[in-house]
């Protein structure tokens, strides 16, 4: 691994990595079972530098912002490297957002350049808000021949000969602007520095090192903090290989483990549960005798690995299961959303440790991680090296708000000093999550203080971001809350959003109104939908400027209504 202390920016570290391991494979891209791209570090450099030179010739300079909207693929990383090479600031956007949301965040981030996949660009150009965009140059990948690119350039042709000038940046300079939310409300653009990323990388690889020959399967979106770190920066500065799979179809995910002999993978809880479901179904299909033998082996493995994982032994005892994962899997990472302890235990008992962690975009990638010494299914692990955590105002059970201090904490929210001041207090970032430390220094999470949910797919959903979907609903007023915010549950499970309705005087809740709510809800992406609604018996408290006083309203609701009042949709 490179000694990251000697670098001032990601561009420098990545540049050295390309020279250090020229013949190692750094990228494999597969679409289903078809391999599309395979690059060594030397190949990667050959592809990326002409792009960096073209960016330079197009006037892309130090500190300029370039957004990327792409699914996981090699061009994502090649483009990101070219941006860093030129000293630029990367704005990775979630490809699952709508075109209007993309345009909103592009405007907020003041990105000059955009690198985008064709199908996403087509949607963006058809959006009514497109005419107001301030982009100066757009590069579109994989556009069909003869496609109308609306003034954009074809990524594959955007190349210039000649060595590009490398632009170095300082540790405190901005590396990325990453949006943790805010598409419908107040955009939260987390400004992360080169120091944030280099320190995060150092901390993570201290516990889970990469090396040449390691293969990381990238299926989380690369714009997500976890995949950006463990599916790009981490493997590259260690000479490892990233395998991009351009589908989430469970059968191809399973196939990729075997085909590419994957070492590490990061997963959201939904995918982990899907894998568990698939394995359990396979176990059930075994004959009674084979199933009996399998469960005996699992029990034996469990007792022999109680203190710490013994991968070699587990691979021998449960060779069929391990072969199904390619036979070289060391660990799977998960975090970002609640994971059932039983799912974590299921995999651990099979000899496949799942390192459960906790992090938030505002603090880099991960604040805590399970170090497997021993494995714990009931916690999100211990603080990573260099991360300081404390519990603010703990109650009698030791539970309070988690606050973090350290080099991975973001600089600020873009163009929002007020929100920054509320979030980073005396150098400590208050997370809005409730937790406590146990006697072994493991963090346990018990719910949220903030009004938001994290889906099983790892998406942060803030009520304010989806309220506009219910604008104009024929009621007196309405707003959305996270159910666990209204009724603190001391758990991260059962997260859902609820619509609070205040009807007009003498108005009845009709079937037509219910159908209207259902129809509007369905226009939202499935992961953003509300789970139910409830009625409020009095007008919402509002400020002088007519904004809803949410904290007061939440207090009012919980005084008179319980969770049972929610009518599920």
């Amino acid at each position, binding site marked *: 691994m490179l000694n990251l202390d000697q670098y001032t920016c990601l561009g420098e570290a990545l540049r050295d990595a390309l020279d250090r391991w020229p013949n190692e494979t750094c990228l494999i891209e597969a679409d289903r079972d078809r391999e599309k791209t395979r690059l060594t570090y030397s190949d990667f450099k050959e592809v990326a530098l002409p792009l960096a030179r073209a960016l330079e010739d197009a006037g892309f300079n130090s500190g300029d912002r370039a957004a990327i909207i792409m699914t996981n693929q090699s061009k994502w990383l090649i483009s990101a490297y070219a941006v860093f090479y030129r000293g630029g600031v990367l704005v990775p956007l979630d490809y*699952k957002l709508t075109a209007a949301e993309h345009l909103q965040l592009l405007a907020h981030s003041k990105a000059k350049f955009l690198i985008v996949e064709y199908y996403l660009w087509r949607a963006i150009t058809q959006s009514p808000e497109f005419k107001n965009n301030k982009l100066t140059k757009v590069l579109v990948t994989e556009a069909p021949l003869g496609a109308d690119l609306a003034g954009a350039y074809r990524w594959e042709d955007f190349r210039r000969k000649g060595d590009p000038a490398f632009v170095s940046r300082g540790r405190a300079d901005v590396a990325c602007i990453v949006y943790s939310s805010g598409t419908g409300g107040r955009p939260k653009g987390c400004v992360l520095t080169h120091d944030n990323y280099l320190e995060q990388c150092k901390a993570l690889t201290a516990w889970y090192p990469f090396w040449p020959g390691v293969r990381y399967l990238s299926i989380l979106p690369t714009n997500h903090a976890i995949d950006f770190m463990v599916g790009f920066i981490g493997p590259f500065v260690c000479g490892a290989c990233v395998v991009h799979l*351009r589908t989430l*179809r469970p059968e191809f995910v399973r196939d990729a483990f075997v085909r590419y002999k994957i070492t590490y993978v990061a997963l959201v809880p*939904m995918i982990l549960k899907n894998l568990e479901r698939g394995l359990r179904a396979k176990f059930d299909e075994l004959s009674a005798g084979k199933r009996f033998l399998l469960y005996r082996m699992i029990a034996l493995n469990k007792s022999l690995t109680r203190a710490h994982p013994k991968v070699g032994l587990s691979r021998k005892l449960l060779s069929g299961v391990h072969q199904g994962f390619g036979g070289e899997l060391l660990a799977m990472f998960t975090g970002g959303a609640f994971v059932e302890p039983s799912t974590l235990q299921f995999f651990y008992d099979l000899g496949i440790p799942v390192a459960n962690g906790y992090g938030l975009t505002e603090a880099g990638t991960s604040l805590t991680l399970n170090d497997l010494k021993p494995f714990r299914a009931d916690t999100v692990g211990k603080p990573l090296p260099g991360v300081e955590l404390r519990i603010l105002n703990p109650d009698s059970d030791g539970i309070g708000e988690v606050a973090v201090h350290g080099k991975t904490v973001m600089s600020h929210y873009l163009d929002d000093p007020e929100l920054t001041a509320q979030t980073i207090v005396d150098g400590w970032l208050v997370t809005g999550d409730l937790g406590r430390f146990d006697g072994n220094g493991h963090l346990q999470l018990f719910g949220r203080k903030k009004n938001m949910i994290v889906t*099983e*797919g790892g998406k942060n959903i803030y009520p304010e971001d989806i309220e506009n979907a219910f604008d104009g609903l024929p009621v007196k007023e309405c707003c959305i809350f996270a159910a666990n915010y209204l009724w603190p549950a001391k758990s991260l499970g059962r997260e859902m959003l609820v619509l609070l309705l205040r009807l007009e005087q003498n108005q009845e809740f009709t079937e037509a109104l219910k159908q209207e709510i*259902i129809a509007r809800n369905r226009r939202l*992406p*499935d*992961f953003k939908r509300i789970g139910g609604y409830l009625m409020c018996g009095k007008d919402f408290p509002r400020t002088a400027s007519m904004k809803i006083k949410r904290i007061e309203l939440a207090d009012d609701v919980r005084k008179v209504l319980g969770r049972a009042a929610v009518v599920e949709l």
Partner: protein
Amino acid sequence: MTASNQTLEQILNLAAAHFKVPREKLTADDDFFKTLGIDSLQALDLLTRLEHHFHIELPDYELQGVSDFRTLAERIQVRL
């Protein structure tokens, strides 16, 4: 019955069989996440079944934002 209605009918039959739901409980405008009680990965599983049945290939992004059988049928119909 039009070609698109036939496609829709076949999708409803396949979804009912795949997720073991009585066919009569499914209608064209149902939110299939809700009606079938599935997550987005299970929806991708259904998509694979449909690909095999109709002998087509649908990129994952074709399912982005689609949550009812009728729209799904339209996406498939244009590729037949």
